[in-house]
């Protein structure tokens, strides 16, 4: 019976070859970037102007940038930052969106109408503009934040990182809110919710312990698809110069540096191709995994 759909979720997911392959690739990328972090941390900052703009050689397998910094170290380090920024932003988006959508859907009525109209309004605003506004306003404030001893709470390069994650999460929760709200709206009419109310369970408990677990599937799918989107948005903003600030490095920033050095005389291809390829392959893999998860989850709902 080849057409028979496996019963368990993982059984179905395993049949999505591309998704499984992508997941393996992502795990590998994540592991490599994370485990090499102690080495790349200082190496990616080490300048050597004598070695600037070297094409790939044995001592610098992926070449060097305009300040002679090792591109391998920078790419690995940038990967760690890009991925963690993507994960953080997705987590922020899921947290805000789920809470907001669940409350709107469960309370219903006028509260729901008001909350969702607000979502519509934010949806209508240009995301990029909103992001720039958020980064600029939040960034300035965070940079001035001091411990009582006078030391800054976050170093300048980490302020940008945190602000980017929060800002991107802060504009991409709208979709989660809509999805969660719609699902909660239909789930709260389910007899098991009535049964839970008949047991005298508090409302928040019904919402978090009874309704939200039923939404794990769509939320996981959204989170998976939100990560590449966040990474892409970060890259784009860094590319425009309003994202993460040097000496911090992300794939987007590396690519932007590479593109800046494009000129008709000499082509430093490794400066564009390396971060670009790393970024594209990772985003592609994340999207494949998200699609695979969605297919594996939606099959259960079909016949």
């Amino acid at each position: 019976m080849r057409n028979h759909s496996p019963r368990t979720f993982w059984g179905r997911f395993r049949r999505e070859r591309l998704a499984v392959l992508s997941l393996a690739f992502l795990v590998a990328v994540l592991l490599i970037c994370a485990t090499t972090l102690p080495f790349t941390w200082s190496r990616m900052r080490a300048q050597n102007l004598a070695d600037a703009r070297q094409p790939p050689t044995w001592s610098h397998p992926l070449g060097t940038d305009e300040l002679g910094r090792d591109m391998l170290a920078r790419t690995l380090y940038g990967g760690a930052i890009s991925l963690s920024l993507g994960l953080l932003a997705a987590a922020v988006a899921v947290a805000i969106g789920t809470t907001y959508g669940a409350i709107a859907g469960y309370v219903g009525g006028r509260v729901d109408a008001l909350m969702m109209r607000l979502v519509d309004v934010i949806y209508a605003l240009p995301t990029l503009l909103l992001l720039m506004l958020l980064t600029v306003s939040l960034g300035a404030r965070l940079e001035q934040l001091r411990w009582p001893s006078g030391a800054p709470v976050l170093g300048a390069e980490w302020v940008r990182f945190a602000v980017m994650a929060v800002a991107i999460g802060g504009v991409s929760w709208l979709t989660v809110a809509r999805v969660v709200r719609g699902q909660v709206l239909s789930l709260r009419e389910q007899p098991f919710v009535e049964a839970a109310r008949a047991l005298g369970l508090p409302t928040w408990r019904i919402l978090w312990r009874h309704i939200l677990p039923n939404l794990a599937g769509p939320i996981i799918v959204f989170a998976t698809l939100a990560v590449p989107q966040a990474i892409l948005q970060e890259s784009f903003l860094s590319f425009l110069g309003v994202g993460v600030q040097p000496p911090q490095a992300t794939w987007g920033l590396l690519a932007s540096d590479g593109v800046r050095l494009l000129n008709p005389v000499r082509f430093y291809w490794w400066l564009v191709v390396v971060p670009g390829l790393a970024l594209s392959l990772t985003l592609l893999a994340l999207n494949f995994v998200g699609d695979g998860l969605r297919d594996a989850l939606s099959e259960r709902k079909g016949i």
Partner: protein
Amino acid sequence: MLLTIENLRTVIAATGVDGDGPAAVVDGVSLSLAAGGTAALVGESGSGKTLTALSIMRLLPESARLASGRVIFEGRDLVTATEAELRRIRGVRAAMIFQEPMTSLNPVLTVGFQIAEPLRVHRGMSRPAARREAIELLRRVGIPAPQRRVDAHPHELSGGMRQRAMIAMALACRPALLVADEPTTALDATVQAQIMALLGELRRQTGLALLLITHDLRLVARVADDVHIMYAGRIVESGPVAEVLGAPRHPYTAALLRTLPGWGGDAARGNAPLGEPRRARLPVIPGEPAHAHRRPGGCAFHPRCEVGKDDARCRAEVPPVERRGARSCACFKELSSERVGALV
């Protein structure tokens, strides 16, 4: 009395589709239930019996509203109780089980979690203690291998077992009242009997009072002490089961009884031995139950009533509830026993 309902009126909001105004789906219901007793609320679909149950628990959907009346439970009026007070009553002193054991359990949570939850919330039990109690409850409701089933998800259980799990959930905190809304309607006949036997046994063991909502008069005859017959939002007849079902006074009760195969005058209906075709058709009550928005004037049952169909008073006036001893009836043309004989 454990539970006394006085003049309960529940109104549903206007429906947008046909432009109907608000309508009373529960219209002046009064009944009482003693501790440890069993009362049955009987009626056709749409007669308001489920909404009566939901009104008692204050679990009405948004479209419905308690308009007036009192629900005195353990000396407290639930109609005026706050949501916080209700949460300390629901699942603790009064519990409810539903018709659909398939959908009344959360598909993504284990049975054990769902049974343990009221214990953890209301009794403040620790997770392991609540789990032990859940296993014990599963054993008490007759689920085999409770140690294993406690970690099962609802889809791994049969319909009968799910209803047993629902009962375990409802009875976890040992309530004094269980409102059972058609608890066996969705189950096989054999499983129905098992579930009712289980409820009876639990009742004897714990002194639980049962308000059974059903349309199954045979079930009522087997398990209930008192029966309340509901039609179009009103209780038209009530009293001890043996008396009401043995000698109905309201033409609607009599008509309901006549629709049951093998009840009373079987010979007259030509009840043939097995294997031979029945000669006569089972009688039906002509017409349809009165829609809440289009209730006939006067006695709501008069258009379908054999006795009062053409009576001017039945058409014009709503018959008041006449109380006589343990029984009461709301009809201008109450049946005497000779007339019942003629009808059956």
